[in-house]
């Protein structure tokens, strides 16, 4: 195409005077584009995805997780559970924080005790409710004593450790012991990380990392094309992926995803308290059309909030089918008749809260129109991420759309659907309450046999599929766009950034003429 050639010539002309423009990748710098700024960089408090992703690079925890969710050693090199109420961790020798301080069991104890202290109002407190005591018999041993058996315990200790006496709430985030240390953060610009020489596994190969907060998807794409950003995980709109592949410098990688996007209902709302209304809303949404149009098919429908392939998933749940006629019938049954037949008056008015992310707003717009087809007038309120998230956590909404990131254990069902797990302690933001679900989720925490737990969680899923306190929508496949010289990043279903530490920059090579090699 002549235009493309003209473009290339013009680009060359423009580049020649500027000579070899230095890209960050040439200088050995990894530049990551995050779609939003983190709300908090304190692992004791952070719950938002962007914060957690940076923390995965800067803070080490007792244990890590592999792609399947199984525990791996991190700060702790061995661990054991002599009885169901006791967990003993042995730390590696010679651990240090970024500021040089040695990391000992006292720091572990401090971190968790801080979270457990009600005065600190940590949102993670509920997760460790069963911890009765934390003992430190010596500098390299930590013993957790539980009040009752808690099966998911090992997954909960994947939490960044901070030094004892770290201040909270200040502008400087607490140091960690992870592969990268934070050199500086500008609140709405970027975070600068540099590799930590004292990291127990050796310093990371890439010495300098910049994490840029770029909310505008066009700017993200253009920065990638221009080379000022060389890494974006789930950061490029599906429509632009082909263009990214054509630059010749970028590579597009796809991997299965594990984070379920869902529609949340507020069951305290008089209209949404009726399960028929919730089911009507669910049946009015054409999920497949949205996946095809907005995600270009790079997503799979979900019927449960567990990541696909989870050992506790119930594969026998029949999917909610797209049936607007049935939706209308259900609304009629529930008493929300259409006041004027086919006319513009709605049966019901609801508000839907979402973040500023453009894709999410398009999803909202698609859902809004599908709601209109069944007679529900949906008002979309699009809020800045931090504000939106805080409204959701407080239960201030009728409908909202969000994604569960990093579910490691089906105990999430207790955290999200037990009637006692209402904010600020839990994630039951909609106020769902079912005595059977309560009973099962509590029992499953205590149960150590995986088989028995699986059966309990399957029953929970079936009840939730009947009641629809949330409507699981889809699971996006994870798509990474990176400079072709970067290697070593492992895309995990939960979008973890932990493997940044094992990335390296390959030698510069002349890009082949023509399109890049997307996989």
């Amino acid at each position: 195409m002549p235009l493309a050639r003209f473009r290339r010539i013009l680009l060359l002309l423009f580049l020649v005077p500027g000579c070899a423009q230095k890209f960050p990748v040439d200088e050995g710098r990894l530049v990551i584009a995050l779609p939003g700024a983190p709300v908090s960089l304190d692992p004791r408090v952070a719950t938002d995805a962007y914060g957690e992703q940076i923390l995965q690079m800067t803070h080490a925890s007792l244990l890590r997780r592999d792609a399947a969710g199984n525990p791996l050693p991190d700060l702790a090199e061995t661990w054991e559970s002599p009885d169901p109420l006791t967990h003993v961790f042995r730390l590696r020798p010679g651990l240090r924080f970024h500021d040089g301080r040695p990391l000992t069991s006292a720091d572990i104890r401090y971190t968790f005790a801080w979270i457990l202290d009600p005065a600190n109002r940590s949102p993670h407190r509920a997760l460790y409710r069963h911890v009765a005591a934390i003992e430190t018999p010596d500098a390299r041993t930590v013993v957790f004593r539980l009040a009752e058996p808690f099966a998911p315990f090992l997954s909960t200790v994947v939490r960044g450790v901070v030094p004892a006496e770290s201040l909270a709430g200040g502008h400087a985030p607490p140091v960690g012991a992870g592969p990268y240390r934070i050199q500086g953060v500008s609140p709405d610009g970027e975070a600068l990380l540099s590799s930590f020489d004292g990291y127990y596994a050796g310093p990371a190969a890439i010495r300098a990392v910049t994490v840029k907060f770029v909310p505008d998807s066009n700017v993200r794409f253009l920065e990638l094309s221009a080379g000022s950003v060389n890494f974006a995980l789930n950061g490029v709109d599906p429509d632009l992926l082909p263009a990214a592949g054509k630059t010749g410098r970028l590579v597009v990688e796809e991997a299965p995803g594990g984070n379920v996007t869902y529609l949340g209902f507020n069951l305290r709302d008089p209209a949404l308290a009726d399960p028929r209304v919730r089911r009507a809303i669910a049946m009015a949404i054409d999920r497949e059309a949205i996946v095809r149009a907005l995600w270009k098919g790079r997503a799979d429908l979900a019927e449960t909030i567990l990541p696909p392939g989870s050992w506790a998933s119930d594969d026998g749940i029949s999917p909610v089918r797209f049936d607007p006629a049935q939706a209308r019938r259900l609304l009629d049954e529930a008493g929300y008749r259409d006041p004027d037949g086919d006319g513009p008056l709605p049966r019901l008015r609801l508000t839907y809260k979402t973040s500023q992310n453009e894709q999410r707003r398009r999803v909202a717009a698609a859902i809004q129109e599908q709601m209109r087809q069944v007679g529900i007038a949906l008002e979309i309120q699009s809020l800045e991420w931090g504000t939106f998230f805080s409204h959701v956590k407080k239960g201030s909404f009728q409908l909202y759309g969000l994604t569960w990131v990093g579910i490691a254990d089906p105990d999430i069902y207790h955290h999200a659907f037990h009637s006692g797990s209402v904010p600020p302690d839990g994630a039951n933001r909609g106020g769902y309450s079912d005595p059977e679900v309560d009973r099962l989720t509590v029992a499953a925490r205590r149960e150590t046999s995986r088989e028995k737990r699986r059966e309990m969680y399957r029953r929970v899923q079936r009840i939730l599929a009947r009641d629809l306190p949330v409507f699981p929508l889809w699971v996006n496949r994870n798509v990474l766009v990176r400079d072709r010289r970067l290697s070593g990043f492992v895309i995990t279903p939960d979008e973890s950034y932990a493997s940044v530490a094992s990335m390296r920059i390959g030698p510069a090579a002349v890009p082949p003429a023509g399109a890049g090699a997307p996989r």
Partner: protein
Amino acid sequence: MRGYFLRRALHAVPVAFGVVTVVFLLIHLLPGDPVEIMLGESAVPAQKEELRRELRLDRPVLVQYADFLYGLPRGDLGTSFRSREPVLREIRRRFPATLLLAATSIGVAVLVAVPLGVLAAMRKGRAADYLSGAASMVSLSIPNFCLGPLLVLLFSVSLPLLPVGGYGTARHLVLPAATLGTGMAALLMRMVRASLLEELGKEYVTAATARGRSRRGAVLAHALRNALIPVVAVLGLSFGAVLAGSVITETIFSWPGIGRLLVQAIDARDYPLVQGCVLVVALCTVAVNLATDLLCARLDPRIRYE
């Protein structure tokens, strides 16, 4: 001169007061409880009370107003609800970026408009005049949220010459400055042309022209200088328009200035920050208008005696 200065300054004070009052009243236009809107309807009552106390909304309106006024000279514009930082600090951090953009836009506009305006005046009635007239009409009419994406389409997408947004190098400044400056350039061009034509029609010019070509250059330069005085006035008054236009332009180009801060504050329902941004921009406009008045009075003594 001092009398004029005092009179203008005295006039600006109640206007500033009025501006402060209007901005203060903004938050009371909210359709509902500000605290509920910021925290969300089902927030814990204790948190609502805390925020209400922090925003001083629990006191009678007059007391709030007094507090607001009292805080201004001390630089206390409240605390950003989202970041918990003082509003003034957030604004100060972003101000330089907007200032850079505004100064560049105005500079570019002047550099483009003055020569073109002079050209149009000198070549009045001929092709150059009509062409520039048409171009300025289009430039005047095109809003910046149309022009911005259009420029991006031309110079970032079709011809990958300039970045589509962001901040950092001189190349990042080009498109935003062009977007902001175009409308102003068109206005200025027309003004320069009209003003110069008026000057050129005056007796001293025609007399000098009749007397011979040798004087013409100096007289024309003199005419130009006189013609530029009203242009300075327009420039100064345009500063406010530039600040207002920066809201949209900074959003289009992800330029980290006050305009974008305002939009981010709105998205976050961070009303103290919204108020702070509007107040700072409006007060800056008042200040610049005052300065423009004084500058014009200095340049053109006739104004002082009006």
